[in-house]
């Protein structure tokens, strides 16, 4: 948990929380096709790119967290495809990879649920690594600064 530039409104907290829920729904729907998660969170981010800083920030963190899973899941997906349709066979390395991928997906899943719930309460959650990249990419713009200013 970290402090944010301002205290978000309830509607901001709801939208920001939804960005994580979006990725969760996408994880469930897109398990066989790992790229779906990334596309879903990207579309949600695009839909909210003119939103408030808090909403944009969390949409971006949700998007980035999906990106790394895409690499892990895509490798597993194509490895599996090459076993089913190609000449590759099930090996110990393959099984270990799939278990490691499931483990990392589970960690991400739990972290996403926790973040969605916490952010819904208006509490800012910055993930290790992903939060720092999000800070670099996502900056408050003039509109939002005005927005922040107008609160006072």
């Amino acid at each position: 948990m970290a402090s944010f530039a301002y205290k978000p409104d309830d509607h901001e907290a709801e939208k920001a929380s939804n960005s994580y829920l979006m990725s969760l729904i996408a994880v469930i729907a897109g398990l066989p096709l790992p790229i779906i998660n990334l596309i879903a969170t990207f579309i949600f981010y695009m839909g909210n790119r003119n939103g408030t800083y808090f909403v944009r920030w969390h949409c971006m963190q949700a998007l980035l967290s999906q990106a790394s899973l895409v690499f892990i899941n895509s490798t597993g997906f194509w490895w599996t495809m090459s076993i089913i349709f190609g000449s590759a066979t099930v090996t110990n390395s393959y099984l270990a990879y799939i278990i490691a991928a499931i483990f990392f997906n589970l960690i991400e899943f739990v972290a996403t649920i926790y973040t969605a719930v916490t952010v819904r309460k208006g509490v800012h959650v910055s993930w290790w690594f992903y939060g720092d990249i999000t800070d670099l990419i996502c900056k408050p713009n003039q509109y939002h600064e005005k927005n922040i200013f107008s609160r006072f």
Partner: protein
Amino acid sequence: MKKIFFQGFSLVVLFLAAWFALRQVDWMTFFKVEQATESLEEKLGDLFADIFGKDELYSSDIKAPVDSILTHICTTNGIDRDKIKLHIVANDEVNAFALPDKHLVVFSGLILTAENEAELSGVIGHELAHIQLDHVMKKLVKELGLTVLISMTSGGGGEVIRETAKMLSSTAFDRELEREADIKSVDYMVKADIRPEPFADFLFRLSAKQPDILKNLTWISTHPESKERAEYIIEYSRGRLDGGKPVLGQEAWEALQARLNEL
């Protein structure tokens, strides 16, 4: 920025370390992957072998000579002979093929078309290579998918089983797998002290046969580019074996062919 790179790098290392650590566990045994695969192969092999069973030749004067060639190739190449199930089937087609669970089927038509035991040895070596390199199950999984194969073994689809057996007996593997089996066959023959050139001659001779009799030359018509195959077999085996010893000898070979001609 440095911090982010360090964190990203740590994340990658963490995943790779988790993968490496998990690889130390024998998941194949844990999930009984090998037993499940073997059991599936065994069931499929029995199902397919049954289809050709009605025309199988059990007579020892027919089976014993072919068995001797197979046993010789297996023992000289460190292959467990007991696991290979040889079937000689009365059929005019010039055909031989491998089925799951190490079933090797040779049609009488092929034995009669071969001019000497070395030619037959080449074909046996080729099919043995498909078995040893696990091409049969790979082909089945690729063509039909695991779900269909599993459903076959659980009592479903007699017609599917027949069609699949037909597909296995009448279509070749991928070009790459055929080449791999040809090369492996040459290796087997060299180790078994059998000259590989007759195997290439067999391919050359059959590929040059008239189209009207091609319908009976299944093994050749389904194995494309026979001339090309014969050429690379000759190229690969050049200078690798000069002499070569017969396994059966001319007399036993002629006796086998005479016996088959009586059928």
